[in-house]
C-alpha cells in the first residue's frame, strides 16, 4: 500500500527537477499524437528543436515569441504569490496594446514615444487588474471569475475600436492605424526581429525577482499569499498589498501588449495575442512562481510554438501540437507540484 503523506519542506533541487519532469512527461504523452499523425517522434521533436533553437536566427525568433510570455508569466507569478488569482492577463495585455497603440500614433520624438507607450500600456493593464482586486477587497467578489470575465469585456472593447473609429477606411480591414515609424522599437540585430522590448522582458524578470525576494513589498506579498492571518497579525494591510500586487501584475501584463505593438505588429488587430495571457499561467506554474524561472519557462513555450510551425511543414503533423503541449504541460506541472506538498510513503498492509 502507498499513501500520500504531508511534507513540511521541499529540497531546493525540486524547483528545477519538477518542471523538467513535467516537460518530459508532456513530451512523452504528446509523442502519441505525433505517432497518430504518422510521423517519426524523434524526427518531429528534432525539427522542432532545430527550428526554434538550432541557429542564431531561430533563437532570435523564439526570443521575440517569448517576450510577451515572459511579461504575462511575471504578471501571473507575482499575482499568484499573493494569492491574487489573476486569470485576466489576456485582457490586461490587450488593454496595454490598445493604450500603447494610441500613444504610438501621436507624432513625437521616437524615444519619448516608446517611453510613453510603455507607461500608457502599463497603466492601462494596471487599471484593468485593479477592477477584480478592488471588487475582492471591497465586496469579497471572487477574483478568479471577475478577472476571467473582464478578458471578454476588454476583447470586445478592442473589437469595437478596430471595427469602429480605428477601422482602416481604405482597405476596410478591422485593424488599427499603424503607430509612427519613429515609435517602432529599434531592432537590435540587423536582419532579425529581435527588438528592444525583448531586452526589456529579460531585464524585467530579475527586477521582479529582486522585488519579490528582497524588498519590503515583496515580503508583504509573500506573507499575504502564504498566511494572510499572520500577515494581518503582523500589521500588514492585506487589502493594500492585494491592490499593490494587482497594479504590479496588471502593469506587467500591459507591457506584454506594448512589446507586441511596438516591436512586432506596429498596430492592433483582433488576433494580436494568440492567448499569451493564458500561456502566462502555464509559464508561471512551470516557473513555480519564481520570476527568474519565468524566463526559461517562457522560452520553452516559445520554442514549442515556433518549432511546431517548422515541424508541421516538414512532417505534416498539425502545428496545433504546440497548443496540446501547452495544456498538457500545465496539467503535468500541477500533478508534479503534488510532490512538494506530499510524499509517497510505503505503508504496511495492516495500517
Amino acid at each position, binding site marked *: 500500500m502507498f499513501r500520500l503523506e504531508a511534507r513540511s519542506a521541499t529540497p531546493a533541487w525540486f524547483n528545477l527537477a519538477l518542471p523538467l519532469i513535467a516537460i518530459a512527461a508532456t513530451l512523452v504523452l504528446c509523442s502519441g*499524437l505525433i505517432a*497518430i*499523425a504518422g510521423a517519426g517522434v524523434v524526427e518531429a521533436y528534432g525539427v522542432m528543436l532545430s527550428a526554434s533553437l538550432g541557429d542564431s536566427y531561430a533563437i532570435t525568433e523564439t526570443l521575440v515569441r517569448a517576450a510577451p510570455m515572459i511579461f504575462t508569466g511575471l504578471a501571473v507569478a507575482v499575482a499568484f504569490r499573493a494569492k491574487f*488569482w489573476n*486569470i485576466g492577463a489576456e485582457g490586461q495585455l490587450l488593454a496595454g496594446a490598445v493604450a500603447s497603440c494610441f500613444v504610438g500614433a501621436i507624432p513625437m520624438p521616437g524615444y519619448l514615444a516608446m517611453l510613453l507607450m510603455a507607461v500608457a500600456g502599463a497603466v492601462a493593464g494596471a487599471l484593468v487588474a485593479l*477592477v477584480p482586486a478592488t*471588487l475582492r477587497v*471591497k*465586496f*469579497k*467578489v*471572487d477574483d*478568479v*471569475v*471577475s478577472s*476571467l*470575465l*473582464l*478578458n*471578454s*469585456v476588454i*476583447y*470586445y*472593447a478592442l*473589437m*469595437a475600436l478596430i*471595427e*469602429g473609429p480605428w477601422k482602416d477606411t481604405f482597405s476596410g480591414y478591422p485593424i488599427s492605424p499603424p503607430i509612427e515609424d519613429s515609435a517602432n522599437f529599434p531592432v537590435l540585430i540587423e536582419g532579425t526581429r529581435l527588438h528592444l522590448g525583448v531586452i526589456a522582458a529579460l531585464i524585467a524578470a530579475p527586477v521582479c525577482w529582486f522585488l519579490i525576494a528582497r524588498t519590503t513589498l515583496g515580503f508583504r506579498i509573500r506573507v499575504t499569499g502564504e498566511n494572510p492571518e499572520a500577515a494581518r497579525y503582523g500589521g500588514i494591510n492585506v487589502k493594500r498589498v492585494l491592490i499593490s500586487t494587482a497594479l504590479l501584475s496588471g502593469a506587467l501584463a500591459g507591457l506584454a501588449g506594448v512589446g507586441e505593438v511596438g516591436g512586432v505588429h506596429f498596430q492592433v488587430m483582433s488576433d494580436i495575442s494568440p*492567448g499569451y495571457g*493564458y500561456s502566462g*499561467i*502555464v509559464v508561471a*506554474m512551470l516557473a513555480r512562481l519564481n520570476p527568474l524561472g519565468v524566463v526559461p519557462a517562457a522560452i520553452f513555450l516559445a520554442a514549442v510554438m515556433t518549432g511546431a510551425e517548422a515541424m508541421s511543414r516538414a512532417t505534416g*503533423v*498539425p502545428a*496545433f*501540437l*504546440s*497548443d*496540446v*503541449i*501547452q*495544456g*498538457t504541460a*500545465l*496539467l503535468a506541472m*500541477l*500533478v508534479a*507540484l*503534488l510532490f512538494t506538498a506530499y510524499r509517497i510513503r510505503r505503508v504496511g498492509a495492516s495500517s
Partner: protein
Amino acid sequence: MSAVFEQIFQLGFLAAIIRIATPLAFATLGEMFSERAGVLNLGIEGIMLLSAMAGFTAASLSGSLWFGVLVAVLTGMAMGALHALFTVALGLSQHVCGIGVTLFSSGLAYFLYRLIFGQQSVPPSIKGFETVPIPVLSDIPVLGQAVFNQFALVYMAILAIPLGAFVLYRTPWGLSVRMVGENPRAADSAGVSVIATRFQAVILGGALMGLAGAFLTMAQFNAFTFGVVSGRGWVAIALVVFGRWDPWRLAGAALLFAFVDALQLRMQASGLGHIPYEAFLMLPFIFTIVAMAIMSRNAVAPSALLKPFRREER
C-alpha cells in the same frame, strides 16, 4: 405589407432567441451541477470545443447525427472526468486545472480536426438536424413556430431545465450534490461519499457541456470552425453566477442573454449601427461582474466552491 413583414421579423426573432439560448442552457446547467458540488469547471470553454469537434467528426464519418451527439456527450464526460481527477481526487487548484483543461482540450480539438480533415479552403459541412414540428402545439400562433418547430436538441434543452431542477432539489442524489458543495464535512459524516458525488456531478456537467458543443456543430452551424464556441463557455460561467446556481434562473439568464445577442445580430444586419454591436456582447459580462458585487452581501455561491476535500485533514 409592413405588418406582414413585422410578423415574419417577430417569428424569426423569437426562434433565433430560442436557438441561441439552447447551447447556453445545456452549458450553464452543466457548469451549475459541477459548481453545486463544489467544483468550478473553467475547462468548459475547451470541453465544449472538443465535444463540438468530436461530435461533428463522428457524425460526418458515420453519417448518423445521433451517433455524433453520443460521441460529443461521451467526450464531454471524459473531459469532465479528467477535470474531476485533478481537482477532486488529487485536490489540485480548480481554476488553474480548469485553464489547463481548456488549453488541453482546445489544442486537442484543433489538432485532431486538422489531422482528420486537413486544410481546406471551404470547411467541410454536414447536413445537420432538421426541425421537428410538434403536432398541434406548433400551430399556436407566434409561439408555436418559435418554440415547437425546433430541433430535437432544443426540446431536450427545454426539458433539461425542469429535469435539472427536479434532480437537484427533489432527489437524494441532488441533496448529496448540494451537501458536498455546501458542507462536505457534514456530508461525509452523514455517510455521503464526497469524492464520488463530486466526480458524478462534474461528469454529468461534462455530458451537458458535450450536448452544448453538439448543438453548435450539428444544429446551429453544421460545420466545425476554430471559433465555433468563441467564448460561449465563459458566457456560461458568467450566467451561472448571474442565475444564482438555480436551474430556473439559469434558463431565464440564458434567454435574456440570447435576447440581447439576437437583438445585436438584427441591428448588425439592418445596419442600425449607432451603437457598436460589441457593446451588447460585453453586457452579460459586465452585468455579471456588477451582480457579483451586489450579491456578495448575501452569499449564494456554494460555500465549498474551490475547496478541495481531503478526509484526513481537519
